[in-house]
């Protein structure tokens, strides 16, 4: 039993947390800091970013120069372990006509080790979309209910950005955000090109430290009534360094400058002495007693391939949206023949991803640029928030929800395929001419990527596939998917807009510009923002969880990952997952004190 903490496992815990990523890490942090005894189960292996991150390794140091392969689909240096679009021995299936892609990883910290660090708050509209335009579902709480937790999470993990006071693009409280890095050259050029189109370009909000966190005062503010928790956090916060403007965040970060559960949440949680972690523990079922209360979970110990059972007063699933739904659907009993917490029949329903589409442009003003270090914070420094709320409200667009734009470019570290397609620019140049053309074109391409809101619909869901189990004997998920016109129309609008921006910059598009959104849109799941499947709501008949992400049917059972989402705004979900997880953890502790759980 590979425990990464020193203490022996207890016979019973207050809380079992399934998963160690954004949701599990945040839940465990919040609980352990307040003295709650937590057992965390992680399906993947232990992972140490300090010793395992390839910080300065070059393409030449990697097989195939680090090119993506089926084994490492985001490239050799991507932090993802035993995962990607497929996990060895752990399949999933698609119903006829479906093509959902499910990115998973099997490592401590989950996908927080490689994620894009884009940390945008959902705004007031995003919590009440149905009230606003009649589509989709409302959340049972308001932005104002969650805002304090956004402040807390941003302060804890460190997020750079600015407060711009834009519509449905919330400001953080004063002193919460870190200063953004200066824009890169190409980002300034995009801003200039966007200006006549009235497309805003502002600093992005990214979970990367641009300066060392104030470990002397921040912990006290985050834990005002708990000096011990503040001291524990301070000791770990002190170990994080500010970004040194090199190496890609997707590799992880050995100096702890960006947010990973494994560098930011788990170290202080472990330091409290209240958190035990078992890795290589694949949870298959939540167990219940005769009264229908959760008693613990069964898991497969991957090393011995034996079934184990652990007990706790409360069970929190934080295994990622679809994985938590899978556990619930596989937790069948005479009391819950339809799967646990599924009296509404909604477990697995309202699966969403983000709408993605991109256009690449070649910009002559960037040709033959003098050498400049564009590495920066690895992630984007600038972005475009959704800017057409008024047109939408006036019915001028054929889709109801917004998207933001991420631009990537600059003179970044050459990667495999760097000059694929240059023959079209150069008419097939080779020889000395090709060398000159490479110097001319390096850094002159910009990719405009849209990330837009999908509206939940009845055709997108997951269920148990009765014909397939994984290598641990656990029945797997089968996905169903169908985009609506809302998403495909939005994707077509992205392409049109990006082409306009590229033209405004004096450039040319070098990838197809589609008028048919079905051709423009990425595959479902491909943006890796899958949320929904254990929906939150105000009515037990139509939702799985209440506003505290607590099961309506089983009151000591919670789901704190992306599963509760009932809308998937264009704001990348990780930050919101953490804010909601912390809010749930506070509710758990308040309920424990009252004796409700």
């Amino acid at each position, binding site marked *: 039993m590979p425990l990464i903490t020193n203490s022996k496992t207890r016979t019973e815990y207050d809380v079992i947390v399934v998963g160690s990523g954004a949701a599990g890490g945040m839940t465990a942090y919040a609980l352990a800091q307040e003295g709650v005894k937590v057992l965390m189960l992680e399906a993947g292996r232990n992972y140490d970013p300090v010793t395992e991150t390839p910080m300065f390794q070059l393409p*030449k140091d990697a097989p195939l120069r680090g090119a993506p392969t089926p084994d490492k689909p985001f490239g050799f240096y991507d932090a993802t372990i035993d995962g990607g679009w497929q996990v060895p021995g752990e399949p999933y299936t698609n119903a006829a006509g479906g093509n959902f892609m499910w990115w998973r990883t099997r490592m401590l910290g989950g996908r927080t080790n490689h994620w894009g660090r884009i940390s945008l708050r959902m705004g007031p509209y995003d919590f009440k979309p149905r009230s606003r335009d009649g589509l989709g579902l409302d959340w049972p709480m308001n932005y104002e209910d969650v805002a304090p937790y956004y402040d807390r999470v941003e302060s804890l993990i460190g997020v750079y950005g600015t407060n711009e006071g834009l519509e449905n693009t919330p400001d953080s409280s004063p002193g919460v955000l870190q200063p953004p890095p200066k824009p890169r050259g190409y980002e300034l050029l995009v801003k200039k090109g966007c200006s006549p189109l009235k497309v805003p370009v502002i600093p992005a909000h990214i979970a990367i430290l641009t300066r060392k966190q104030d470990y002397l005062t921040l912990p006290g503010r985050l834990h005002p009534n708990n000096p011990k928790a503040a001291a524990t956090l301070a000791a770990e916060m002190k170990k994080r360094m500010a970004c040194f403007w090199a190496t890609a965040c997707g590799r992880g970060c050995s100096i702890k400058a960006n947010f990973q559960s494994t560098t930011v949440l788990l170290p202080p949680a472990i330091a409290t002495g209240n958190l035990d972690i078992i890795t290589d523990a694949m949870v298959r079922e939540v167990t219940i007693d005769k009264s229908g209360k959760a008693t613990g979970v069964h898991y497969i110990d991957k090393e011995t391939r034996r079934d184990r059972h652990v007990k706790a007063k409360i069970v929190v699933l934080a295994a990622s949206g679809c994985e938590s739904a899978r556990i619930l659907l596989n937790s069948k009993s005479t009391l819950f023949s339809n799967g646990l917490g599924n009296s509404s029949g909604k477990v697995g329903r309202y699966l969403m991803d983000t709408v993605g589409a991109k256009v690449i442009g070649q910009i002559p003003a960037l040709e033959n640029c003098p050498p*400049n270090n564009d590495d920066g914070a690895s992630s984007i420094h600038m972005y475009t928030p959704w800017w057409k709320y008024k047109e939408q409200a006036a019915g001028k667009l054929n889709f109801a929800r917004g998207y933001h734009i991420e631009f990537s470019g600059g003179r970044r570290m*050459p990667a495999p395929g760097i000059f694929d397609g240059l023959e079209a620019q150069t008419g097939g140049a080779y020889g000395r001419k090709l060398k000159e053309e490479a110097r001319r074109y390096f850094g002159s391409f910009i990719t405009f990527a849209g990330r837009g809101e999908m509206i939940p619909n009845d055709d997108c869901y997951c269920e148990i596939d009765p014909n397939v189990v994984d290598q641990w004997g656990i029945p797997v998920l089968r996905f169903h998917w169908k985009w609506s016109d809302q998403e495909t129309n939005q994707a077509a609008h992205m392409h049109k807009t990006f082409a306009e921006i590229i033209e405004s910059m004096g450039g040319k598009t070098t990838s197809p510009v589609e008028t048919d959104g079905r051709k423009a849109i990425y595959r479902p799941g491909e943006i890796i923002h899958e949320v929904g499947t254990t929906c939150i709501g105000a009515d037990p008949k139509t939702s799985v969880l209440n506003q505290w992400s607590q099961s309506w049917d089983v009151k000591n059972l919670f789901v704190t990952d992306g599963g509760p989402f009932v809308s998937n705004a264009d704001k990348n979900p990780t930050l919101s997952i953490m804010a909601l997880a912390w809010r749930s953890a506070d509710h758990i502790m308040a309920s424990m004190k009252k004796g409700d759980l």
Partner: protein
Amino acid sequence: MSTPENKMGRREALKWMAGAGAAGAFAPATLAQKVENAGTPTRSATDPNLVKAVLDWKGVLAESELKILTALCDLILPKDDKSPSASQAGVPAFINEWVSAIYPIQQADKLVVRGGLAWLNTESLRRNGKDFVDLTEAEKTGICDDIAYLPKAKPEFAFGALFFAKVRDLTSTGFYTSEIGMKDIGYIGNVPLPKFDGPSPEVLKHMGLA
């Protein structure tokens, strides 16, 4: 600012590259056996050691193929006053590594590259009565000009053009992901900096933003 582990990783990788250059192919699996990962479980293709990468497959290209490939790579990216040639940057060994991998994309590329190398030599014999590697620069260029760009190639050179485009892309990847190539095009990142200054005044002026 790299950790000792990282530095070791770089040194191991340099040795690996040195072995690759000397052998005319890339390093055999013996190095892989020496490099171990501390503190983590068994390694696999989906959980490789990222800090000290190893290559666990052998090159499939024959000596004769590598000679043609080397000549072609150096025609695509020759030495000039700013940087060495493709072969001096280890490109043929990289392409051998690439086409020898087990993955579908690389397997497909293997067919194009191997078939193309043989096609190129056949074309050379047909035109000049000599192997490609024995041609003069002008004779080599004579063939390559016919296959340099698919949209302009005659129908009978369609495969040749596809092959040439593939090798040009792979040569560019091999060259510009090497330190020699990075220096050539002026990639100056991957170094820790105390602060990020954004574009220099010179760059801003170049972009028309000054």
